[in-house]
C-alpha cells in the first residue's frame, strides 16, 4: 500500500512540475499569484518526492520482496546500511535519487530565494520544473521503481557485492548533489537568457550555487576514486575510464564556471562566457548520465538491449541541450559585454585558466566519444585509453599549474607582472629546492617526475605566498603579521587553501606514480617478503563465515624500519546469493603513505599468490581534494557572499541599483 502511495506521490509531483513549468514560463513577467504558486509548487514537489523515496527505502529496509526492485537488488541477510544504499545501487532507484535531489535544489531556490527579484525566481523555478518533469517522466514511463511482483518471492537476489560497501552510501549521493546542483546554475542561465537581464543579483546568486555544486562534485569524485582504490584490489585510483571521464568533465567545466562566476560577480565581466559555461556544465552532467546509463560505453550493442531508456535519455539530452544552446545563440548577442580589463590582470589570468580547463574538457570529451563515433560511422574499432589521456591532459595541466600562483597575486583590471614575479620568487626558489632535495635523496631516473614535483610545490607554496605577502611577514612585527593573517578575508583564505589543495594533490599524484613499488609473489604461511624497507610476514590463512558471504581470511605482520610490527588483514569474499567474489585489500597507513596487500588464488599445496604495493604519499591525492572542498565551504561561509539572508537595508539598496541598471540594459537591448 505504501509503495502505491509512493508511486502516486511521484505521479502527482510530475503533474505539478508540468503545471509549474508551463504557468511559470507563460506568466513570469506579470502575475504575482503565479509567482507564489510556482514557489509553493517547488516546495510541494520536494515533500511528495521525499515521501515517494522513503516508501521505497521502507520496502528495502523491511525486505519486502514483492517490490520488484527490492527483489532484484536486496537480500534479507544484507546489513541494514546496505539495504538502504541498495535503493540507489541500481538504475530505477538512482533515477529516483536524482529526482529527489533535483526537487531538493528547486525547493532550496524557492525557500532561500525570497529576496531574489520575483521574475527571475519564477523563471528559474519554471526551468527547474521542466527538468523535474523530464526526469520524473523518465522514471514513471521507462524506469518505474514501484513495480510489484505477484506472488512475492521469498528471498531477494542480493545487491552487486562490489557495491556492498560504505562507499555506495557516500559516493553517489555526493556526486548527484554535484551534478544536479549545477542544474540550478543552468536554470539561472536560461532564465537570464529568456529575460535578457544579467544583473548584480543574478551574479550574486550564481556563484554560491556553483561553489556548492562544485564542492559536492569534488568530494564525490574524490570519494569514488578512493573507493575504487581500496575496493578493486589492485590499488589503482584513476583509470581514465569513460565512466570516470563523464563525471570528470562536469568537474573541469564546473571549475572553470566557478572562476568565471567570480570574475562576473566582482568585475561584471565575462557574462556571456559564464552563461555558456553554466549551460555546458549541466549539459555534460546530462551527457554523463546518458553515457553511463545507456550502456553504449561497454559496447555499442548493449544499447540495443534496452533501447527505450537509452533513446529516451538521448532525446532528453538532445532536447534540453539543443534548446539551451538555441536560446543562447539567439539571445547572447543582445547581452552587453561589460568590465574592461588589461591582459595582464587577475581577470586575464582567470580567462587563461578557463581556456585551459575548457580545452582539457574538450580533449577528454573528444577522447571519450571518438571511438564510439568512429565505430558508428566507419566501423573501425579503436581504443582510447589511459596513455592518450595522460598525455593530452598532462600537457594542458603543466602551463595551467605554472600560471596558477600568478593568478591569485595579480590585481584586478591591470597588474604589474614583474612585481608579482618578485613576490613569488621566494615560493619558486623554495619549490625548486624541495624538488632538488627529493631528487638527490631518491635518484632521478624518471624524467617527468622532477618537473611534476616542482610544479606541485610551486602551486602549494605559491598560494601560501599570497597569504604571507598580504600579512606582511618580515616587514612588520610578527604579532602584527599574525593578526593580519587571521584578519584576512575569507575569500582570500579560501582561494589560497583551494590552490594549496591543488598543489598537494599534484604532489601526491606525481610521487605515487613515480615511486610506487610492488612485489608479486607466492607465499606460504610463515614466509616473509621485503618491500620498500618493510618486511611482510604471512601469519594466518583460514576460512570464516560473514553475514551474507563467506570469507577467506589472511593475516600479515608488517615490520617497519623503525622496528615496530603492525598487523594487517586481507580478505577474499564470496557472496552467497550471487556467488560473486570480491577482494578486500589490507591497507596499512604510514604517514601519508600506504602499504597495500591483496591476496590472489592459492594452488593445490596452499601456496598463496600475494601482491603487495608500497604507495608513497598516495593519501596526499585525496587530502588535496579535501583542502579544495574545505576552501569551498569556507568561501560559502563568507558573510559578504552569502545569499538569502542579506541585511534588509543592503538588499533594498541592491534592488534599487539592480532595477536601474537592468532598465538601462533592456533599453539598449531593444534599441
Amino acid at each position: 500500500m505504501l509503495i502505491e502511495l509512493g508511486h502516486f506521490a511521484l505521479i502527482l509531483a510530475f503533474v505539478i512540475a508540468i503545471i509549474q513549468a508551463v504557468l511559470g514560463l507563460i506568466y513570469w513577467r506579470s502575475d504575482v499569484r503565479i509567482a507564489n504558486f510556482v514557489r509553493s509548487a517547488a516546495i510541494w514537489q520536494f515533500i511528495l518526492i521525499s515521501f515517494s523515496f522513503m516508501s521505497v527505502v521502507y520496502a528495502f529496509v523491511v525486505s519486502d520482496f514483492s517490490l520488484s526492485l527490492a527483489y532484484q537488488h536486496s537480500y534479507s541477510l544484507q546489513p541494514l546500511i546496505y539495504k538502504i544504499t541498495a535503493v540507489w545501487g541500481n538504475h530505477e532507484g538512482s533515477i529516483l535519487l536524482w529526482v529527489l535531489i533535483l526537487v531538493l535544489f528547486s525547493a532550496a531556490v524557492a525557500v532561500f530565494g525570497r529576496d531574489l527579484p520575483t521574475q527571475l525566481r519564477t523563471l528559474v523555478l519554471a526551468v527547474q520544473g521542466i527538468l523535474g518533469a523530464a526526469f520524473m517522466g523518465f522514471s514513471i514511463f521507462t524506469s518505474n521503481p514501484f513495480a510489484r511482483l505477484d506472488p512475492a518471492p521469498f528471498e531477494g537476489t542480493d545487491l552487486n557485492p562490489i557495491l556492498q560497501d560504505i562507499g555506495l552510501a557516500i559516493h553517489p549521493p555526493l556526486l548527484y548533489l554535484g551534478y544536479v546542483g549545477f542544474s540550478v546554475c543552468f536554470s539561472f542561465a536560461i532564465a537570464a537568457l529568456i529575460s535578457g537581464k544579467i544583473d548584480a543579483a543574478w551574479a550574486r546568486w550564481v556563484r554560491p550555487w556553483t561553489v556548492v555544486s562544485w564542492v559536492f562534485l569534488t568530494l564525490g569524485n574524490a570519494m569514488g576514486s578512493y573507493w575504487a582504490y581500496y575496493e578493486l584490489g589492485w590499488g589503482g585510483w584513476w583509470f581514465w575510464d569513460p565512466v570516470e571521464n563523464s563525471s570528470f568533465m562536469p568537474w573541469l567545466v564546473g571549475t572553470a564556471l566557478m572562476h568565471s562566476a567570480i570574475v562576473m560577480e566582482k568585475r561584471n565581466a565575462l557574462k556571456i562566457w559564464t552563461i555558456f559555461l553554466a549551460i555546458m556544465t549541466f549539459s555534460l552532467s546530462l551527457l554523463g548520465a546518458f553515457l553511463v546509463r545507456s550502456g553504449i560505453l561497454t559496447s555499442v550493442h548493449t544499447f540495443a538491449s534496452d533501447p527505450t531508456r537509452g533513446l529516451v535519455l538521448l532525446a532528453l539530452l538532445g532536447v534540453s541541450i539543443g534548446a539551451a544552446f538555441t536560446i543562447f545563440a539567439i539571445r547572447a548577442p543582445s547581452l552587453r559585454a561589460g568590465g574592461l580589463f588589461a591582459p595582464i590582470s587577475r581577470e586575464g589570468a582567470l580567462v587563461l585558466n578557463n581556456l585551459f580547463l575548457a580545452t582539457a574538457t574538450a580533449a577528454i570529451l573528444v577522447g571519450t566519444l571518438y571511438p564510439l563515433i568512429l565505430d558508428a560511422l566507419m566501423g573501425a574499432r579503436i581504443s582510447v585509453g589511459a596513455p592518450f589521456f595522460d598525455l593530452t591532459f598532462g600537457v594542458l595541466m603543466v602551463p595551467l599549474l605554472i600560471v596558477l600562483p600568478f593568478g591569485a597575486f595579480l590585481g584586478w583590471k591591470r597588474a604589474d607582472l614583474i612585481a608579482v614575479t618578485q613576490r613569488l620568487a621566494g615560493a619558486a626558489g623554495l619549490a625548486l629546492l624541495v624538488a632538488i632535495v627529493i631528487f638527490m635523496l631518491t635518484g632521478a631516473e624518471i624524467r617527468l617526475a622532477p618537473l611534476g614535483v616542482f610544479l606541485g610545490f610551486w602551486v602549494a607554496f605559491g598560494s601560501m605566498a599570497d597569504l604571507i605577502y598580504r600579512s606582511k611577514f618580515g616587514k612588520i612585527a610578527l604579532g602584527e603579521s599574525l593578526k593580519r593573517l587571521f584578519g584576512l578575508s575569507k575569500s582570500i583564505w579560501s582561494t589560497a587553501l583551494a590552490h594549496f589543495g591543488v598543489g598537494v594533490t599534484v604532489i601526491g599524484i606525481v610521487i605515487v606514480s613515480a615511486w610506487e613499488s610492488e612485489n608479486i609473489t607466492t607465499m606460504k604461511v610463515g614466509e616473509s617478503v621485503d618491500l620498500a624497507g618493510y618486511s611482510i610476514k604471512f601469519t594466518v590463512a583460514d576460512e570464516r563465515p560473514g553475514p551474507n558471504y563467506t570469507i577467506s581470511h589472511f593475516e600479515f605482520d608488517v615490520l617497519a624500519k623503525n622496528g615496530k610490527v603492525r598487523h594487517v588483514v586481507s580478505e577474499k569474499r564470496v557472496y552467497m546469493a550471487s556467488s560473486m567474489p570480491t577482494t578486500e585489500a589490507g591497507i596499512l597507513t604510514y604517514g601519508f603513505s600506504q602499504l597495500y596487500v591483496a591476496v590472489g588464488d592459492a594452488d593445490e599445496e596452499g601456496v598463496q599468490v600475494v601482491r603487495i604495493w608500497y604507495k608513497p604519499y598516495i593519501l596526499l591525492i585525496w587530502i588535496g581534494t579535501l583542502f579544495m572542498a574545505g576552501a569551498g565551504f569556507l568561501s560559502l561561509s563568507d558573510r559578504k557572499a552569502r545569499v538569502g539572508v542579506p541585511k534588509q537595508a543592503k538588499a533594498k539598496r541592491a534592488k534599487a541599483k539592480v532595477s536601474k541598471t537592468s532598465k538601462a540594459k533592456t533599453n539598449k537591448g531593444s534599441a
Partner: protein
Amino acid sequence: MNFRKLFLAFLLVFSLLTPIVAFAVLPSEILDDPVLEERARDLSKNLRCLVCQNQNIDESDAPLAADLRVLVRERLVEGDSNKQVIDYVVARYGEYVLLNPVLGPHTIILWTAMPIILLGGGVFLFFLVKRRKKTGKSITLSKEEKAALAELEKHDV
C-alpha cells in the same frame, strides 16, 4: 544471465568503478630477466584486455589477458623489439587492442583536436583583446562635445 544482470546493475550506478575485481600479473608469468620483465610490463600497460571494459592486460585477471601477457613475454624472450611485439599483437587482434591509438588518417581528428582547440581559443582571445583595445581607444568626442570642451578650455585660460 545472472552475471549480465549484475554487470548492468553495476554500470547503472554513477560509479567510478568499472573494472571488476582484478588480480593481474601472476608470479608464474614473471620473466627471470628483470629488464625484459620491465619492458613486458610497460608494453602490457598499453594493451587493452579485449574482454574487459576498459582495462589493460597488465591489470586484468581475465584468462585472455593472461594469454596476451604470456604472448608478449614470449615475443620479448625471442628477441623482438617493442615495436615488433606491438605489431605482432595488432596483426592478430586488430587496432582495438591499442590503448594509445596510432596516428593515422582515421585518428587525425582525435590527435589534433586538443591543439586545435587550444590554438583556436588562444587566437580568438588574442583578437578579442586587440579589438577591445581599439574600441577602448577609439572613443571619440562628438562635435557638440568638442565644442563644449573648447568652450570650457577657453574659460579656464
